[in-house]
Every structure is written in structure tokens, then in C-alpha cells.
């Protein structure tokens, strides 16, 4: 497997994110695999941002901090990064080219891309066709800029390895995959209040709403968002809300209302670095226990943590499915690293479940909270029957009760629902095991990419990915851990939250942890070196 890293760095607003996408798309269309990591601060103009792009002839899921090529759009970028080959204003007449073309400064990035293509001995056509699709009506001037950059670069050139593949690949961010999953699940309504890194899903769905006949709306705050979502879902709509930790905290009282009212609800929670405002445009996996426990009182929920866009797509459909079938709160747990990085996929996977609405034609005497053996009360919608949702403990008809036996009856019904759910989840691949070795790396969510890229270099290690955090696949996890010689947890947090959940659910205590809490995601090198350091 050959990998080449390109870093594109510059101030916010100088077009580096766009350049990274143009470059990536030019290459994936020719059979290469590309992973694009975005590192940006919480400001709109200025500061220092960069994209780290890994290009390979084999699937690649992570980035690296040692670049082969660096496009440094400003001075700061030269100070912060280094590479074998550097493109900057020092060795390319960028300003001159822009001036001669009479082009806006915005096309500077394209001049650099042209130079990069020249250095890699790649045909300019590839870049041109990517520019056509990415720049739309601004394609021409960018193509001219790229051609000038291509000509202007004359220093050392090194032909890139061949892609070895004729297959076309998809280039998808985590956010897009969650959005595509929602569309595949038949979403009617997406409601959100902007918050990084959940916002790209709002933008994606807002752009797609007309074409696919659903609505994406923004309300006054997250409390309104989640309450309106429950109202709409009660009326029968397939509804999802999206937020990050702070907004999720505001929603938590209503998550508890979901629990008792059993109105289906899907929550997309994209974690960022906390506490509070924290490091808002960076990543973390520190809200897992919060997602598993948020809301007062006890009630069942599904907390699902995809590790890449393919899983994000498939699991989003699952989240909708479970929420409707069980009258359940489904939380899709993502983070900045998964949601805002771009991945190359051969294709998106087939749906694991059928996205039914689970709305039954109610019989006469319909009871919203019918006591059933499996704990699931058939769902109807207002207009078809008297349908009652309530935040109070209630009888089968949804009337308020306060007496002891009736209270126990309804609590037991919800507990049985959880048992039924646990059974079904065992069939949904709640864990995944990569490789078969005596020692085990345990992790969840977005660390998957770096771990998978490190694994081939780690003899004797297998990787256990936990995809369902609630209900927890205790038996399956326990079975693997009991036969593992060394076990280490990898998590983007300072405490290693999954070890606590595993201990609580299985009794197995994992004491070796590789933790990263500098607001940055793991890279394969971190895993390889880190595991060696912890396990002596």
C-alpha cells in the first residue's frame, strides 16, 4: 500500500477546504482512495486552518501529520508545517499570475493545485474536470489559474504511484452519510438549531429538502427543536433533530418526555470538545456517558456509534427503524472527526432494515399504551383514533395515574420493551471484530479509521469496535474480552468512558487505556506507538 500526504494550509476563508475537495475528487475519479481531514478554528476569516489529505492506491481512513507535499498559502503555514516539497509564494509567482489573469485572489488555491499536479506528473485534465463539477460557473477562471500554476512549477517532480483501479469511488463526509441515511429512511422533517459540528447535516438536508419532499427547519433553540420534533412525530412524521453537546444538554428534559410518552425520536449528536464551549471546532468522544444517561428517570434508548460514513448511512436508517418500531429514542453518536472528514468508499452499503413507518390501522378501542407481552404498544396517529401522549405516568389509555400498581405496570411494560430491543439488536451487528489475534484494541466511533490503518502494522492485535452503546451488547463483548490476552481501550477522551460502561455491563475491567484529549483525532502513528507504550 502506497500513501502520499498532501497538506493544504492557510488562513480561514482562503479556499483551502475547497482546494482539498477539488484535489480529492480529481483523484478518486481515477481510482485513488483519499481521506481528507479538516483542521479549522472557530472563526470565519484569518487564523490558521489546514487540510491533511492522504492519497493511496488502497482504502485509507486516516490522515498523517508528516506531509510529502505542502501547499502553504501564507507565512503562518510555512511556520506550522513542513514537507519534502513545499509550494508557497516564495517559490511560485502566484501574485503575478493572478494579476496577469485579472482574476480575484480567490483563485490562488487553484494556482497551487496546478503546481501540485505538475510536481506529481499528473495530467491537468483530471484537475480540470474536477474543477468543472466543483466550481460551476467559476470553473473557467480556476482552470486558467491551474494551468498557469502547472506551467510555472519547474522544480523537482516525482511521479505518483498508479491507482491500480479502474473502479469509480464515492467521496463522502460523515455528515453527508448521515443525511443520506435520513433520506433513505424516508425522513419527513429535520429540525435543528445551528451548532458545530452538527450543522453540516442541517445544511445538507436543507439543500436536498425540495428534491426529496421533506422539510428541514430551524427553530428558536434546541428546547423548541426537540419538543416540536416530538409533536411532529406524534402526528406521524419521520422526524430527526441534530445538535452537539450543548444543545443536547438543553434537550435532555424532553428526552425524558420521549421515554415516558414513547413517541419515536431520532437525535443526531455530533460531539465536539467540551466542557461548555470547549474547543468548538475540534473533536472528542467525551459525551458518550451523557448520551447513554441523559434525561431523568429510567427509560430504554438506542445509542448507536458509527465509525465511518458507510456505517453512518446504514445506522441512520436503523435509528429511524428502531425509533418507530419501539416508540424509542435513537441517538446517533458522531463527532467532529467523523462528521467533517471526507472518506472514499467503493459504495454505500445496502440497508440493514426496512424503513417502515410502523403505523398500524388502529382497531376499535385503540389504546395508546396497550400492555403487551413484548412491551411494544402498537402505534397509531391522531386522526385515526384517540391517540394520547403524556409526560405523566399513565394507564393504557394515556390517562394520568398515581397509584402504585398502575405505576409498576407501565414501568414493567417499558422494561419488557427494552428486553425485546436487546434481542433484536443482537441481530444488527452491534459489535464488529477486525482481524483475529490474541490481543484486543477496544474502541468505538471515529477512532475506527486510524485503528484500521494501524492494524496491519500491529502483529498480534485485533480490533473490537462497539457500535451499539445502548442497549449494550454485553454478552458479545464479554466473550471476546474473556479470551483476549491484552486488552487496551482507545478513546478520544481523558477518562476512557467505554471502560466504565464495559465494567458496568460485563464486569470486565479494562485498565490499559490509550487516551487522547488534545481536541485532535488519533492518527495511525498514535495508535502504533501509543499501544506499545501502554502495554510493555
Amino acid at each position, binding site marked *: 500500500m502506497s500513501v502520499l500526504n498532501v497538506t493544504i494550509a492557510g488562513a480561514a476563508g482562503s479556499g483551502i477546504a475547497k482546494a482539498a475537495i477539488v484535489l480529492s475528487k480529481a483523484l*478518486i*475519479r481515477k481510482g485513488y482512495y483519499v481521506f481528507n481531514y479538516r483542521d479549522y478554528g472557530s472563526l470565519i476569516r484569518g487564523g490558521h486552518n489546514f487540510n491533511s489529505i492522504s492519497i493511496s492506491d488502497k482504502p485509507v481512513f486516516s490522515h498523517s501529520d508528516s506531509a510529502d507535499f505542502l501547499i502553504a498559502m501564507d507565512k503562518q503555514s510555512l511556520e506550522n508545517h513542513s514537507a519534502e516539497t513545499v509550494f508557497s509564494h516564495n517559490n511560485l509567482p502566484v501574485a503575478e499570475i493572478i494579476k496577469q489573469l485579472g482574476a480575484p485572489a480567490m483563485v490562488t488555491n487553484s494556482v497551487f493545485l496546478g503546481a501540485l499536479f505538475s510536481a506529481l506528473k499528473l495530467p491537468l485534465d483530471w484537475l480540470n474536470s474536477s474543477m468543472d463539477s466543483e466550481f460551476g460557473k467559476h470553473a473557467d477562471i480556476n482552470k486558467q489559474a491551474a494551468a498557469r500554476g502547472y506551467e510555472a512549477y519547474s522544480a523537482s517532480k516525482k511521479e505518483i504511484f498508479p491507482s491500480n483501479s479502474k473502479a*469509480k*469511488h*464515492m*467521496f463522502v463526509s460523515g455528515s*453527508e452519510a448521515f443525511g*443520506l441515511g435520513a*433520506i433513505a429512511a*424516508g*425522513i*419527513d*422533517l429535520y429540525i435543528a438549531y445551528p451548532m458545530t459540528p452538527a450543522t453540516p447535516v442541517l445544511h445538507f438536508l436543507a439543500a436536498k*429538502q*425540495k428534491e*426529496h*419532499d*421533506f*422539510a428541514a*427547519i430551524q*427553530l*428558536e*433553540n434546541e*428546547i*423548541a*427543536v426537540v*419538543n*416540536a*420534533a*416530538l*409533536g*411532529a*412525530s*406524534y*402526528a*406521524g*412524521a*419521520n*422526524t430527526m433533530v441534530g445538535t452537539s453537546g450543548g444543545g443536547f444538554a438543553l434537550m435532555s*428534559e*424532553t428526552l425524558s*418526555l420521549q421515554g415516558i*410518552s414513547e413517541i419515536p425520536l431520532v437525535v443526531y449528536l455530533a460531539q465536539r470538545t467540551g466542557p461548555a464551549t470547549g474547543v468548538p471546532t475540534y473533536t472528542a468522544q467525551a459525551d458518550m456517558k451523557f448520551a447513554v444517561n441523559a434525561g431523568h428517570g429510567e427509560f430504554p434508548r438506542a445509542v448507536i456509534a458509527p465509525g465511518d460514513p458507510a456505517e453512518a448511512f446504514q445506522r441512520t436508517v436503523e435509528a429511524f427503524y428502531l425509533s418507530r418500531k419501539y416508540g424509542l429514542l435513537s441517538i446517533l453518536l458522531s463527532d467532529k472527526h467523523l462528521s467533517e472528514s471526507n472518506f472514499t468508499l467503493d*459504495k*454505500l452499503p445496502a440497508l440493514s432494515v426496512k424503513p417502515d*413507518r410502523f*403505523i398500524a390501522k388502529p382497531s376499535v378501542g385503540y389504546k395508546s399504551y396497550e400492555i403487551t407481552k413484548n412491551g411494544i404498544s402498537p402505534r397509531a*396517529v*391522531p*386522526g385515526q383514533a*384517540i*391517540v*394520547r*401522549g*403524556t*409526560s*405523566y405516568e399513565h394507564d393504557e389509555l*394515556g*390517562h*394520568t395515574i398515581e397509584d402504585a400498581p398502575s405505576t409498576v405496570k407501565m414501568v414493567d411494560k417499558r422494561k419488557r420493551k427494552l428486553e425485546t430491543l436487546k434481542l433484536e439488536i443482537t441481530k444488527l451487528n452491534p459489535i464488529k471484530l477486525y482481524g483475529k489475534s490474541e490481543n484486543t484494541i477496544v474502541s468505538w466511533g471515529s477512532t475506527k479509521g486510524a485503528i484500521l490503518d494501524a492494524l496491519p502494522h500491529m502483529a498480534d492485535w485485533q480490533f473490537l469496535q462497539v457500535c451499539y452503546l445502548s442497549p449494550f451488547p454485553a454478552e458479545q463483548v464479554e466473550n471476546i474480552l474473556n479470551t483476549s490476552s491484552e486488552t487496551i481501550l482507545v478513546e478520544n477522551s481523558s477518562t476512557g468512558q467505554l471502560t466504565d460502561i464495559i465494567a458496568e455491563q460485563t464486569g470486565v475491567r479494562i485498565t490499559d487505556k490509550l487516551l487522547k484529549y488534545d481536541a485532535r483525532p488519533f492518527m495511525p502513528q498514535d495508535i502504533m506507538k501509543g499501544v506499545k507504550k501502554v502495554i510493555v
Partner: protein
Amino acid sequence: MVTGIGCHAKLYDYIGTSGIYGLHGRVLPVSMGVKLGNKELTVIGFGGDGDTFAEGSSHFLHASRYNVDMTMLVHNNQLFALTTGQATPTSPKGFKGKSTPDGFFERALNPLGTALINGASFVARSYALDPKLSELIQQAIKHRGFSLIEIIQPCITFDDTREFVSSHSYQTKHDTTDLQAALKLSQEWSYELDASTKIPMGLFYKQSRAVYTDNIPQLDGPLYKKKHTPNLIKIFDEFY
């Protein structure tokens, strides 16, 4: 029907219709959601003054702007009753509740004025013991847009103001399409209960304007009847 939490919300169990007995303060967003989910439903929200003007104040501001086609009935007893008698944003000056034993001295909120300024398209005040109230409620339900009725409804346990309200209120007679006149009326009573108090009752303002769902064709019809059959192959195409 959608209710909040408070004495007013007990109504949910007295009326056996479809609805959600929601959380304290959240009547308006839940009601809005129901209407977005199925705009053919008639949606009526019931809140208390604590519920709507304190806990749910942010939603109250925006509901008028959105102009969702729904009716909001606020049962204003000028106190938190279910929590045994504390002051709300519309308690009368000097009110001695359990949390304000020395009296309540804050300035009251002006909910009707707030609603008017922010675009509510039907704004009224009435009195629980006024036999004409039911007709006003019917009018509010029929109105297409956000209809707000503040219903003065004395709490006979913690602060029985029935006699006072009956003797100090009067029916307004003005042009109900005149926003300025309505705004003036909304400022006439600041929730104080002194000898000079005059409480205007009746329809303050009515206006016809586009409702929230008018601008979003994707919200047409009950959404659960939609059959989404997305062509995934085609959708994925743009990612290649």
C-alpha cells in the same frame, strides 16, 4: 390538544381527546410540531401563565412570528398554582406568595403587547366566568393563524380575585384591525389590582396573513401519508 404542566393542564385528563400532556413551558413548540406533522389537525394549546410567560417565554416570543395555524389558550391565574402559590411574570404588584412573603415588586410582563408586536394574528383577552368566552374560543379556532386568548381565571385557593376582576373589567369596542388601538389596549392593565384598575376584555386584534406552513410545500397534508421512495442510486451519483 397540547397542555403544559400546572393546574390548568389537568384539563388533559378531563377532555378525552387526542393530544400530548407535555412538559412545563413547552406547549407551543409541541403544538407547532403537531401542526407541521399533520396540518389537517386542529391544534389547541393550553398553558398557564407560569408555563407560557416564564418557563416557556422564549417559545412565546417566537410563536407570534411563526404564525402557525393554531390556538393558544393561556389560563392566567396570576400565580403558579400547582406549586402552591408563587409569583409569576403576571402577578399583581404587592402579591404575597410563599416565595415572596414581603410582596412581589417586579414589573409585570406585557404578554398581549408582546404577541401583537411580534405578529400574532389573533389576540384576545377574556374571563373564565364570562359566558361569551366559548364563542370567542370558537372564533380563535376558526381563525387561520396563531390565535392567542389570555383567559383571566382566578385561583380560588391561593388568590381569589373573582369579585375584583368582575367589577373592574369591561368589553372593548374598537376596530379590531387597528394594531395601534390594540397595542394601546394591551398597555391599559399592568396586572395590578388597585381601585383605578380597568381591565379590557374581548378581541383586541385580528389580521389575516400567511401561516407558517404556507411557505413550505413539503409540509402539505399529513406527512405520515407520504410514500418516500428515494432513488438512492441517483442520489449517490453526485458523490462519485
